[in-house]
């Protein structure tokens, strides 16, 4: 039996974040536990922090044509994906388009334009909305723009499972590659920050009302809410044999995915659900808890969710170092899982994380990382996990 048959590998990655269009700069910030600066309003009063994308000029990567009606989330995704394809040394002119697939994770992308369409319709009249903006009313618009840009025809799927969406998109891509529904899959997560999303976060009770400095910090006992972020992370996935055949550089192996749901609000049940999810992902990857070198957590500073995850991690991985990237990049929602994957690849390749960047503060500097478990928890009881390994 060919044991390499079902192996899925990462061969390219790209990011657009508050650390520019540069995944190495992003990793450097995460690796060193950089915290975003506090923000103030016009009266110099502190306001909730939002980690915004900067040093971003879409035309540098995409040219000028066809960008006029694209939302930032679509631009971020397209740039991150083009970078990932370049990193994988895949020329989209020569790739077989009906074997190239796309999976996107995002949650709030249609919100701005659908809200604007409705408000305009009931206040000014339906003819005053822009027909050019109609594609932007639906959440799969970034994926659609990307498909046209890179001529991807195999499939084009958008997963919107909340804070677990990024990890779930990776699970979906693994499955599609194993089923041979594509030879190459671009998986990207993207979110943008705009006035409608800000309204949603604020009124859904996800933002803190005070103590902004402590908020958005994973597992911090006084954190009362999220520090939102925006941006996009994308990776190129292939079957191992195809990657080897074309001489690709393999950055890491995406071993397994699993997701569970806890249909009650009981913390004990959700802790059990979280443990079951992590255990199943590890078992599917034929690994053992003791071999996990690093947890890259989806914790985001929401007290109840973080508490559940921390209890689960303490039970299953009492001595394993935990990295919480959202302290540095914010809660990027649908993009979060992809940022976790990119971080894990860098962690495995660089094999070094500063002790103060880790969430379990007693940990010393981490110097040897071969296997990482990525975790995500959604507000309503979903939990997902992805196992990533050094490619050997």
């Amino acid at each position, binding site marked *: 039996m060919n044991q390499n048959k079902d192996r899925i590998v990462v061969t390219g990655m790209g990011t657009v974040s508050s650390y520019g269009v540069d995944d190495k700069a992003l990793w450097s910030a995460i690796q060193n536990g950089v915290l975003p600066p506090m923000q103030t309003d016009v009266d110099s009063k502190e306001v909730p922090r939002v980690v915004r994308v900067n040093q971003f000029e879409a035309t540098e990567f995409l040219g000028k044509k066809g960008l006029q009606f694209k939302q930032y989330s679509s631009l971020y995704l397209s740039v991150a994906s083009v970078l990932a394809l370049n990193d994988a040394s895949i020329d989209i002119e020569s790739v077989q388009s*009906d074997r190239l697939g796309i999976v996107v994770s995002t*949650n709030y992308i*249609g*919100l701005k334009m*659908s*809200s604007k*369409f*409705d408000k*305009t*319709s*009931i*206040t000014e009249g*339906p003819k005053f*909305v822009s*027909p050019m903006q*109609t*594609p932007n*009313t*639906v959440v*799969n*618009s970034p*994926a*659609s*723009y990307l*498909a*046209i840009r890179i*001529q991807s*025809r195999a*499939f*084009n*799927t*958008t*997963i*919107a*499972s*909340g804070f*677990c*969406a990024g990890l*779930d998109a990776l699970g*979906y891509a693994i499955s*599609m590659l*194993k089923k041979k*529904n594509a030879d190459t899959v671009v998986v990207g997560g993207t979110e943008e920050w705009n006035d409608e999303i800000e309204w*949603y976060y604020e*009124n*859904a*009770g996800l933002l803190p009302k005070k103590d902004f400095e402590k908020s958005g910090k994973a597992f911090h006992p006084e954190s009362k809410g999220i520090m939102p972020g925006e941006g996009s992370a994308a990776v190129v996935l292939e079957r191992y044999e195809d990657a080897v055949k074309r001489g690709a550089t393999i950055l890491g192996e995406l071993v397994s995915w*699993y*997701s*569970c*749901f806890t*249909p009650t609000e009981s913390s004990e049940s959700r802790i059990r*659900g979280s443990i*079951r999810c992590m255990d199943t992902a590890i078992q599917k990857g034929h690994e053992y808890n003791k071999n996990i070198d690093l947890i890259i957590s989806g914790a985001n500073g929401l007290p109840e969710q973080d508490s559940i995850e921390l209890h689960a991690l303490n039970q299953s991985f009492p001595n394993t170092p935990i990295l919480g990237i959202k302290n540095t990049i914010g809660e990027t929602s649908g993009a979060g899982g992809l940022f976790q994957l990119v971080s894990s690849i860098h962690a495995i390749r660089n094999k070094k994380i500063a002790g103060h960047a880790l969430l379990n503060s007693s940990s010393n500097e981490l110097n040897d990382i071969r296997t990482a478990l990525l975790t995500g928890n*959604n*507000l*309503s*009881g*979903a939990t*997902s996990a992805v196992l990533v390994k050094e490619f050997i």
Partner: protein
Amino acid sequence: MKKRIAVTGLGVLSPIGSGQEQFWKALISGEVGTSEIKSFNTSLFNVNCGGEVTDVDPAAFIKKLNPEMLGRTSQLAVAASCMAWSDASLPPNIYPKHRIGVCMGSSLGNSSVLESVHDMQIRGENNIPSDYILNSSLDTVANSVSIELGLEGPSLTISTACTSGNNAISLGMNLIQEGDVDAVVVGGADGISRFCYTVFHRLGAMAQELCQPFTKDRKGMIVSEGAASLVLEDMEKAKQRGATIYAELAGYGLSSDAYHLTAPHPEGMGAALAMERAIEDAHVEKKDISYISAHGTGTKANDISESLAIYSVFGEQTDSIPVSSIKSMLGHAMGASSAIEAVACTLAIFHSVIPPTMNVTELDPKCVKNIVPNRAIHQPVDVAISNAFAFGGNISTIVLKGVTR
């Protein structure tokens, strides 16, 4: 060898009737469920026709969550899933709860929440519960179903515009075939939406009164709402427990036009690819296809593109295969439409009846010809394929097969 997938439970809410029996009876009688929209003021639009679920209150199915805090789409998803769950008659504990998943598709999510918030803001009401706003997000569509049914497997919402239902069905199939679950509740839901109405109104894509797929003088599509859910099980396990197996979900095919954000490929390139892939995945022969449930929106561009795709896949055989569009009766329920059509195909196989395309007058010579005009046909359906197309050139086709009873 890959696992075979049984369809063992069906639930549906639609403008022509809700519940499997009512829906089927109306469908094969050719009842048209689109009429003047009641749930929002259409006086600002130059059309007022739509399809709404009026015979059942979906909120009545919600027992654990507070229905007032849920959007219309989540309510519809829960109601359809409760119907399907009940229909499947799964004995308690036959599968561990964590081995049963939920995959729901929705294009618009709970847009009713945002629309009602806008109305409240205009009235000067600003005290809106945070839980209500939180539940506007797409993930609550699948998660609400998991909570109401007490299921602990993966709970995933897919949003690929109007192919969402078929995409969720194919994802559920993957989960069973890969051994992640033993059973899964799959489907799609979308509540009637004022912003969606605005979108299609602005695009000039809506018909004034009737949806007339494949008819020469067709005027466009009609926005509607609905939900449908199917319970899928590992075929061997379903047989072991003596389940009623309506049909086999035999395969699926996905593709993307990569052509235009709102228009289909003029020659149906992606649609042909998805159908070819679905047929291959299902291990069936083209000559065995006995019914095609068309996406059939009733727009000029869609129906021609789909027809060209069908001709390119089936060649000379095309005119011998009945092709119908039930959107002529239901309107276009967005992310729910393909899930509803999956239920229709399943029942067509189970009852050996092909639902009609209604409102047909003179056929469009550029379209498929064998469109089951205005009256259902009673004949065996061994293999049915169901197409779904969406904004962004997203395409998904599923294949359902009869099971020897």
